[in-house]
């Protein structure tokens, strides 16, 4: 699509994003934020089962990076990557049902929050809680692309904290040795739960870890959605060319607690306000769009209205969804047999065992 001259005249907006695409980025960030705000309301109404995790202030990392992928590329999101999942095709309805533990949620009530995926059509993988584990998994996903000579790329996120895990190290090292088409995005939001990055790693820059794996380590402003897009686009292009793994460190800030229950008492006074005031990724992007890029604020308001309507509709549907049927959780542990196992040790006490005849004689059998 053609780039309008107004946009091209913004030196910060690079030429490979069309006007529609720039508005797209705004749409995804706004949708992420509004959907999370809706989830907060539902959480306060105790309709959310379990914890609620926000990505407030980190929307640009998730959206800008996922936006650099093609539909056939595989994305491995973490808890701060609701935005990435939406870009990859996860719907607000799925997310709402999932958080409310509904029977028609993507995991049918088995897993919580945004722990779900779709590798048959939309190409994003459901995470587990154990930090770092998705890195070796994505090494294998992208090793397959290489073995099958498919021009596909994988992108895996880890937090600053997760870079301390053995799994991260083993996975990225293996992928690097194999020159897998993988992009490892370290979302450095300065905290791992309550632990500041300085207690996580003695290196000044997490991007410097790349040197130890013999791969490039890039760093970008994670609250600038276009910068995030660009740095990821370059790493993705490198991977697709067959040049292997890139580590991308995105500098950002976690404005909410680890989860909703966390009161952030460990954060120095004023720090959160400062980031909210000076470095909100959506505010910054709006200023850029309506400033140098010349987008009419009315256009953004129209997007906001669209997003609100989408989330409202999804909420209405999700709230009406039924809870899961207890027995449904027994199937699907193995490919074969697909049916539920017999529950002899519990129900058998009344059924299966009672059906067994008691021998007439105890001890020795006749015959």
């Amino acid at each position, binding site marked *: 699509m053609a780039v309008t001259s107004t946009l091209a005249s913004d030196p910060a907006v690079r030429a490979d994003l069309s006007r529609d695409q720039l508005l797209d980025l705004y749409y995804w960030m706004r949708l992420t934020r509004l959907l999370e705000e809706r989830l907060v309301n539902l959480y306060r109404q105790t309709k959310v089962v379990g914890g609620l995790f926000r990505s407030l202030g980190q929307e640009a990392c998730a959206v800008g990076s996922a936006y650099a992928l093609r539909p056939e590329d595989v994305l491995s999101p973490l808890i701060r990557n609701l935005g990435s999942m939406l870009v990859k095709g996860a719907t607000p309805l799925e997310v709402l049902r999932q958080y409310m533990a509904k029977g028609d949620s993507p995991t049918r009530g088995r897993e919580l929050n945004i722990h779900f995926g779709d590798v048959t059509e939309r190409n994003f993988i459901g995470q587990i809680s154990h930090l770092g584990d998705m890195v070796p998994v994505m090494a294998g996903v992208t090793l397959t692309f290489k073995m099958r000579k498919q021009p596909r790329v994988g992108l895996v996120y880890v937090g600053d904290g*997760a870079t301390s895990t053995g*799994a991260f190290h083993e996975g990225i090292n293996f992928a690097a040795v194999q020159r897998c088409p993988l992009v490892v995005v370290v979302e450095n939001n300065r905290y791992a739960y309550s632990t500041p990055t300085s207690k996580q790693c003695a290196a000044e820059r997490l991007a410097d870890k790349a040197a130890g794996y013999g791969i490039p380590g890039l760093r970008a402003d994670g609250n600038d959605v276009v910068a995030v897009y660009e740095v990821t686009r370059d790493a993705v292009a490198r991977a697709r060319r067959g040049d292997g793994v890139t580590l991308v460190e995105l500098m950002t800030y976690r404005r909410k607690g680890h989860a909703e229950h966390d009161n952030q008492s460990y954060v120095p006074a004023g720090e959160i306000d400062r980031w909210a005031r000076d470095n909100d990724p959506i505010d910054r992007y709006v200023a850029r769009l309506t400033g140098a890029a010349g987008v009419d604020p009315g256009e953004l308001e129209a997007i906001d209205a669209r997003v609100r309507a989408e989330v409202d509709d999804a909420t209405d549907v999700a709230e009406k969804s039924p809870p899961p049927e207890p027995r449904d959780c027994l199937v699907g542990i193995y490919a074969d047999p697909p049916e539920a196992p017999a529950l002899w040790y519990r129900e058998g006490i009344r059924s299966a065992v009672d059906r067994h005849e008691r021998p007439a004689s105890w001890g020795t059998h006749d015959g």
Partner: protein
Amino acid sequence: MAEATYLEAIRQGLFEEMERDPSVFCMGEDIGAYGGAFKVTEGLLDRFGAERVIDTPISETGFVGAAAGAAHMGMRPVCEMQFIDFVSCAYSILTNYVATARYRAMLPCPMVVRGPSGGYVRGGPFHSQNPEAAFLHTPGLKIVYPATASDAKGLLKSAIRDDDCVLFFEHKYLYRRIKETLPEGDVVVPIGKARLAREGRDLSIITYAATVWKALEAAEQLEREDGLSVEVLDLRSLLPMDDDAIVATVKKTNRVLVVHEDTVTGGIAGEITARINELAFEWLDAPVRRVAAHDVPLPYAPPLEDFVLPQTLDIVRAARWLAAY
């Protein structure tokens, strides 16, 4: 003395042991200024300082392994898993290095690995686990899993003073739900001794951790509705296991139901059943039965979790079947 919750009892145990012995120190994620994900270690940093209350990187193998090394040198480290589900990340170092250290190399490993365990809290498959059986099979480790506040405190003291590695499972459902007036003074609960939680004549329920409370509820219901006198044995220690207490209750009631929250296949109930079979078969009037979780990763939606985990009514039904056998 004021009442203490299960969680406060653990915290008291940590405080008292750190006061008593300067070689005791704590490591874990977010245990310092934050006081731990469940606030078990709250106040420890202020009292003992950052040298003895160490916030670690997210590196379970790293700090459990470091605990082993420090233990070799005479320290008594206590490691917190933010959730016990993450102990699997330290499985190799615990089962290969720590568990064998004394036997193969005469290396003492006086250390404790503790953390919030168990379900009934809508935590889903990775914040609800009961991995005790995964370690039961490893000679060289000790395993305790208290059900009461005073046992939590007394067993933690024993665990810290023990000259070998003790895995100390804490049930997060019990953290703030139960409280009791703790005994005064330095009361230590020995590892390897069960506790008779309720006396009875007709039937024994052998269990541990949160299901002790479900068993007690079931026992009351069975007494009320069926006139059954049910004994409840709380194992407290899983490795070593109190065979004497198990045999004593079998000889007394002749009918045994083993209950645990962990999945049924390969769960500790199988081991208990085998011991009863070998040690007290002649005293049985009915087959030993188990009530345990279904063999699935623990799902998170309330109706699913409630279905998978053993509930009081499941225990009541199984007990009735046993009593009528």
